[in-house]
């Protein structure tokens, strides 16, 4: 895709760093995983929900902004391509939108920042743990299909944090 030049989109204005004009921060796996563990350990399911919702809402608004800005990106294929490029270029990992329909989707991630970070800090876990990525996917598809926040629910059926060979996500209407 030549319309979206990633290297030009990541820049800074003084002390602020931005992607396409939206303020971002660089954080490493120590902080991201510490936040996840703090929320899970302290709030349980409510903490998991907060991680999911925060990623969903943030990515929804970020992608809406990008689609408004790059209005030549109109087709489903090009929007999915842009979303996965964004995921990769933000250092979040690799995501493959394998089967995507307006009411359901099947998505695979062979590597991710959160998986790498969790395994490095805590090793294998017994439950699927990619709450950030689940929320990120929900927000992406809601922005792509112009649905409201919360329209989709994303489940992770296999997870590399549990030592599965890849993370697998199933999306359905809520």
């Amino acid at each position: 895709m030549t319309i979206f030049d990633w290297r030009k989109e990541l820049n800074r204005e003084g002390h602020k760093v931005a992607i396409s004009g939206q303020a971002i921060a660089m954080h490493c796996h120590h902080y991201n995983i510490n936040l996840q563990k703090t929320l899970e350990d302290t709030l349980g399911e409510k903490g998991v929900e907060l991680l999911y919702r925060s990623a969903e809402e943030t990515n929804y608004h970020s992608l809406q902004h990008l689609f408004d800005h790059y209005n030549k990106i109109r087709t489903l294929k090009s929007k999915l391509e842009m979303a996965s490029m964004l995921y990769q270029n933000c250092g979040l990992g690799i995501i493959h939108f394998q089967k995507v329909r307006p009411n359901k989707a099947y998505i695979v991630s062979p590597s991710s920042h959160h998986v790498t970070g969790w395994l490095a800090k805590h090793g294998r876990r017994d439950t699927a743990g990619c709450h950030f990525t689940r929320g990120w996917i929900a927000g992406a598809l809601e922005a792509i299909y112009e649905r409201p926040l919360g329209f989709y629910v994303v489940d992770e059926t296999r997870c590399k944090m549990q030592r599965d060979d890849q993370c697998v996500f199933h999306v359905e209407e809520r």
Partner: protein
Amino acid sequence: MAIDVSKIIHAVMEGSKLRESKGIIPLFGVYLSLFSVNYYNRLSFDFEAKMGKAREAEAQALLIEAAQECGYATFQGIRNSWEWDQVVAPMIENKEDQILGFVAVAVAFGWGDLEVEQLVPKEKLVIRASDSYEARGYLEQHGLAQSEKCYMLRGVTGAFMDLIYGDDYPEGLYAFSAAETCCRAKGDTCCEFIARKSPYRPNA
């Protein structure tokens, strides 16, 4: 030689545009991610809200500890990295310069316009920011705060002192702790973080 902040920022910006085939950014000895400040602010402030008034102090302590432990591990990785050796180490003449190097990396990461206001070796570190993403985010999303809101920077300020004046890694964590003495989220003109030796150590 003084610490050249712009050179460090340039190195981080260039490095953050390189990622390996798995979509991971290994830079300065850690795995970096780039994501909206709104995500981090929502996590912190909604976590605090969900914990409720009765557990507010516990929520704040957990967020600060998460950041201090992160800052301790992160900047330990950073100062042992190839990039640090190449870019920052040649500017460092004494122990205290390391803290200036850490602060320059934090500015490069987009955490705010941090400046070291005072450093008393082994005793005290004062960092100020007129625009931290936490304070800015709180003001934008919630309006004026009743208390200080920069939990991440508060924890990280303590971690900087832990790394320089605490026991050898990893025993020095929480040797220092920081207070946020004023915060833009409360309507102050800047955010100020003061790290001193800890009266207690959470994990001791």
